[in-house]
């Protein structure tokens, strides 16, 4: 008994801040949120059990829920692949000892580190104004830019461009991955008379698959969670015409503008399940296209 205590004491002592946080701020809230999702709760009066009503309402009647899903999915499906393609392209251009790599790397990464800031969201709003920078550039080439911010057809693109602009961190991860590919493989391929395209698809892509997979999962989760950009650019509401109604923005408004905490909790759980589902799908399919060269324990 004494031995058992002594063996575990130090570990749990060091773990205790995290353990408290885990119960109070992670697992506790998740369970509480599950409970609240079966209630009607406006903070003022105690939660009132209504069973699955929140979920029935959500799936059967709530147009905005479906709109939010559609907006979020469009954002994820368009922005993540574009971002990754960009990141990989730049990483490949940076690979193999190009001069001034440090400068390029820093410049490309800078937007990612600023991307979550309100300053950048505010900037973005102005860039895409009707008489903002983007349209001025389009005019230089004789085009006529749309009302990016107020036309629901175009508004989402402002956020997609914002997301792609922040390709820095997947780029760095790709760069680290590319460095890990042995140079001899490319030399061997050259002797086997493989051209650049063939080398890319026969060597780079398969050997980089674990890294691509990692980036994909990470960026997907990030995209589902993104909030501040949409919140600021849409003025906090998802406008115009709910075309920027990201799931997180909708959830925030339900909870903190309309104090529908029960319903917002149900939304939160749906978000959690969607993210879990996408992660699971990514992991499940990964065994078909990701091959780890050496499985180390």
């Amino acid at each position, binding site marked *: 008994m004494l031995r058992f205590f002594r063996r575990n004491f130090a570990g749990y002592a060091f*773990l205790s801040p*995290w353990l408290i946080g885990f119960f109070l701020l992670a697992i506790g809230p998740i369970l509480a949120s599950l409970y609240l999702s079966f209630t009607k709760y406006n903070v003022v009066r105690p939660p009132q059990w209504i069973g699955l009503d929140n979920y029935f309402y959500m799936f059967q009647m709530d147009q905005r829920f479906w709109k939010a899903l559609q907006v979020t999915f469009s954002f994820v499906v368009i922005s993540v692949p574009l971002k990754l393609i960009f990141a990989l392209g730049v990483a490949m251009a940076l690979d193999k000892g190009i001069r001034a790599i440090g400068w*390029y790397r820093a410049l490309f990464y800078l937007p990612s580190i600023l991307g979550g800031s309100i300053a950048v969201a505010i900037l973005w709003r102005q860039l895409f104004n009707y008489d903002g920078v983007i349209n001025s550039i389009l005019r230089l080439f004789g085009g006529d830019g749309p009302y990016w911010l107020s036309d629901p057809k175009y508004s989402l693109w402002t956020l997609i461009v914002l997301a792609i602009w922040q390709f820095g961190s997947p780029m760095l991860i790709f760069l680290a991955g590319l460095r890990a590919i042995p140079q001899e493989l490319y030399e061997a391929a050259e002797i086997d008379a493989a051209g650049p395209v063939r080398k890319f698809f026969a060597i780079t892509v398969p050997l980089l698959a674990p890294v691509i997979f990692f980036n994909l999962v990470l960026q997907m989760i990030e995209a589902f969670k993104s909030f501040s950009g949409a919140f600021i650019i849409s003025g906090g509401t998802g406008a115009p015409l709910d075309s920027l109604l990201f799931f997180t923005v909708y959830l925030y408004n339900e909870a903190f503008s309309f104090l529908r905490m029960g319903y917002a909790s149900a939304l939160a759980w749906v978000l959690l399940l969607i993210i879990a589902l996408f992660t699971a799908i990514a992991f499940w399919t990964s065994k078909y296209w990701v091959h780890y060269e050496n499985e180390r324990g």
Partner: protein
Amino acid sequence: MTEATITPAMLSTAEVARAYREAKAKRAKRAALLKHVFLIVTSLIMIYPLLWMLASSLKPDNQIFGDLGLWPREFQWQNYWAGWNALPVSFTTFFWNSTVVTVLSVIGNVISCSFAAYAFARLEFSGKTIWFALMMMTLMIPYHVVLIPQYLLFLNLGWVDTYLPLIVPRFLAGDAFFIFLMIQFFRQLPRELDEAAMIDGCSPFKIYWAIIMPLSLPAMATAAIFSFIWTWEDFLGPLVYLNDMEDYTVPLALRSFISSDGVSQYGPMFAMSILSILPIILFFVIFQRLIIRGIAMSGLK
């Protein structure tokens, strides 16, 4: 035989090889040049919006829109002065508030996450694998899912409209990313160091303090830097918990510029935006190497 005709067959192999090498070097040079052009153009596009914002922060309002130039015709420095005092509360307060929240959060994160990481990476205790798996799972949980119950918890504790909801979770190792980053680092330190220290009479805490910590300064610095940047930029937390403008952090104050009804003060707004990201840019310039290595190592955001 007065006329010497040189046939290809007469060229020595050395010459052929040299010609081949030269052609190859030329090709490589051209490829590098193309790459540089591509990279320069891309990085200019990347950086242009930020430079435009900087320029706009120094222009009069009527010259901001429709002007692509990066050099103001006249430098309107008073934008900064005007912006600093544009809101009912001065930005001195906002910067002070942000600094308090950020510094305390960084301290909390580094201490509590390194504790947890040390336990996971170095100590043996029953249930470790389960806790580790749960810790890794929390990496995936979106903040929005725990936001409402956390809000209700802090509301009941009477902590809304204080900084406690923003700071206390940082002391409870709320950010699993940092734990993960530190675990990765700790695992690279040889275990025999711990064992030598054990024989030298160190308690687990002394090993953490005298051996692991001093040897992990790069990891601690990386975590501190990211923690700084994320807390400084954090918007949702302050948005939910702070209602009184006196308590606003910088990002929240910035938002007041756009929500404050149509009064166009774009120059001052950009001026304050620039100031708000200045600490981050400074940090980035100073700690660039640590930041970039940190991402490559752990796949952070």
